[in-house]
C-alpha cells in the first residue's frame, strides 16, 4: 500500500474508499488509518482492557481486516457519523475476536498495518477507564486531528521558510508548563529579533493556517456537509 499523502483538499476520504481506482482507494485508506489508529488503539486498551501488545495487534488486525473486507464501504452517511460507524465496527471486531479465540490476536491473513504505539501508550499510561467511552473516543479523535494538523503545519512552515512563524505558534499555543502563559508579545519579539507587530501578525497568520488545515482534515474525513458541520461543532465545543 502506498504511503503517499492523501490529497486532503479532496472532498472526502470516506467517499474515495469507494473509488474504482485502487491506488486512490489505498491512499484514502491510509489517510483514514492515520487519523483513527490512535483513538482506536486507546479505545481498545481502555474499553476492552487489552494489554499493550494485544491492543497493538488488535488495532493492526482491525484496520487490516477493514481494508481487506471493505468494512467502510458499507458506511451510510444518512444513518450515522463515520466516527460513530467506525467505533461500532471496532466493537464488533473486538467482540468477535474475543469470542472466537478468547484472546484478541492479529487479524489472520489480513494485510498488516505497521503502527508505532509507543507514544499512544505513553499518553494513556496512567489513564483510568473513562465513564463515557463515546466521549472518550470523540476526544481522542480530536486529539489525533489536532496532532496531525500541528505536524502538517510545521511541515508547511518549514517548506515555506517560515520556521519562525511556527516557533511563535509553538511557543504560544503548544508550550507546556506555567511559563507558557506568561509569554508576552514584546518579550518574544525581543528574543527573536522581531517587532511586536511582526509577532502578532505571524501568530495570527499561523493560527489561521492551522485552522484551515484542521478544517480540511475534518472535511476529508466526513462524507456529507451535514456530517462535516456536526464534527466541526464537536471539535470546537469538545469540553462544553
Amino acid at each position, binding site marked *: *500500500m502506498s*504511503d503517499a*499523502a492523501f490529497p486532503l483538499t479532496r472532498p472526502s476520504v470516506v467517499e474515495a474508499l469507494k473509488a474504482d481506482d485502487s491506488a486512490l482507494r*489505498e491512499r484514502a*485508506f*491510509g489517510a483514514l*488509518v*492515520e487519523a483513527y*489508529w*490512535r483513538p482506536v488503539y486507546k479505545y481498545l486498551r481502555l474499553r476492552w482492557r487489552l494489554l499493550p501488545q494485544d491492543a497493538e495487534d488488535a488495532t493492526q488486525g482491525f*484496520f*487490516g481486516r477493514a*481494508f481487506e473486507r471493505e468494512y467502510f464501504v458499507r458506511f451510510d452517511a444518512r444513518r450515522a457519523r463515520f466516527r460513530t460507524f467506525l467505533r461500532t465496527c471496532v466493537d464488533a471486531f473486538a467482540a468477535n475476536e474475543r469470542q472466537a479465540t478468547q484472546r484478541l490476536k492479529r487479524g489472520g491473513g489480513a*494485510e*498488516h*498495518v*505497521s*503502527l*508505532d504505539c509507543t*507514544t*499512544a501508550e*505513553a*499518553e494513556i499510561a496512567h489513564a483510568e477507564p473513562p465513564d463515557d467511552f463515546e466521549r472518550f473516543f470523540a476526544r481522542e479523535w*480530536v*486529539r*489525533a486531528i*489536532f*496532532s*496531525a494538523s*500541528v*505536524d502538517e503545519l510545521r511541515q508547511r512552515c518549514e517548506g515555506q521558510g517560515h520556521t519562525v512563524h511556527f516557533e511563535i*505558534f509553538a511557543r*504560544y*499555543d*503548544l508550550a*507546556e508548563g506555567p511559563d507558557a502563559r506568561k509569554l508576552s508579545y514584546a518579550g518574544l519579539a525581543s528574543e527573536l529579533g522581531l517587532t511586536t507587530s511582526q509577532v502578532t501578525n505571524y501568530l*495570527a497568520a499561523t*493560527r*489561521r493556517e*492551522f*485552522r*484551515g488545515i*484542521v*478544517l480540511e482534515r475534518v472535511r476529508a474525513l466526513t462524507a456529507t*456537509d*451535514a456530517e*462535516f*458541520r456536526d464534527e*466541526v*461543532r464537536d*471539535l*470546537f*465545543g*469538545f*469540553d*462544553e
Partner: protein
Amino acid sequence: MTVPSSPPGLSDDALRRLRDAAELPEPDPSRYLVLERIGRGGMGAVYRARDVLLKRDVALKVLHVGADGGDVAARLTQEARTLARLEHPGIVPVHDVGVLADGRPFYTMKLVQGHPLDDVVRGRPQADLLRLFSRICEPMAFAHSRGVVHRDVKPQNVMVGEFGEVLVLDWGVSKWASARDAHDAALPAAAAGIDTGAGAVVGTRGYMAPEQARGDSANVDSRADVYSLGMLLTHMLSLSSTRGMPRPLSAILRKATSVEPAARYADAEALAKDVLRLLAAERVQAHRENFLEQTLRLYRRHRTLVLLVAAYLLVRLILLLWQANTAPGG
C-alpha cells in the same frame, strides 16, 4: 501498510489552547479588537470585542464554520436580520454584520451585562416570578406580532440586565411564520428559516413543543413558543421559595403545554394576559372555577372593600346589640 508516524499526542490543556487559537476570530483590526471569549455554543462562540471606531465594547458572535456552512451560516445571517427587524427593549440590538477573512460570518450586538435567569429566580416568591415571567413574554409577544417564532426558548436564553430589564437571547434558530412575513422583511428565502423542511429538528429537548420535536416545521408557529414558555415557567416555579400551586396556575401551565397546538394559547401575549389576570385575582381563561374559588378570588381581589364592609357590618351589629340591651325594658 506503514502509517506515517505522527508527533506525540497533545495534552488536554494544549488541545484547549489550540482549539481556542484556531477559532479566535480576526475581524478588521481597524474596526474591532477581540478581547475575550464570553460564551460558546454548538454553532459558534461569542466574544467581547472593542469597537475601535465608536470606542465601546460589543458582543461579537461568530460561527465555527465558514460561510459555506450551508444552513448554519444562513441562520446566523437570518438571526442578525431578525434581530435588526425586532426593535424591542427585550431584544438585544444588532450593530453590524459581516464576514471574517477566513469566511466565517459574524455580527456584533450590544454587550449585555446581566444575570442568568436561574440566578435571579432562585428562592424568590411565586408572585415575583409570575411578574418576571410576564415580562419575558413581552419581547416574545412582540416577535409573534411580527410573525417571528423563536423556537429555542429556555432558561439559558433569558437574561436579566443590570437595570432589571429582561432580555430574550439567541434567535439563531428563529423562523418567520410564513413566506410572506419573510418576504416583507426582505429576507432571502434560504435565510428565512422557512426552509428547514420536514424532519429538521431545531430547539432544545425538554423545552420544545411536540410538533417541533417531530421535525414538523410546517406546523411550528407561535404556539410552539407558548409551549416552551410554559415549560420555562414550570422550571422557574420549581426554583421558587413558594411551595404549592394554585389551581388556576396549574391550569395555565396545562393549557400552555398542551400536546395539541390548538389547545394552547394562540401566542405569548395571550399567555401573558392570563398570567397577569391571575396576579390581579381576575378570572383566568384557562380555568373554570367553582363557587368557592370564585368567592375566594373575589375576596382576594376586593380584600380592602370586603374588609371595610365587614367592619361596617360588625360595628352596626354591635350597635344594634348595644341598643337592644340598653333600651327601656330591654
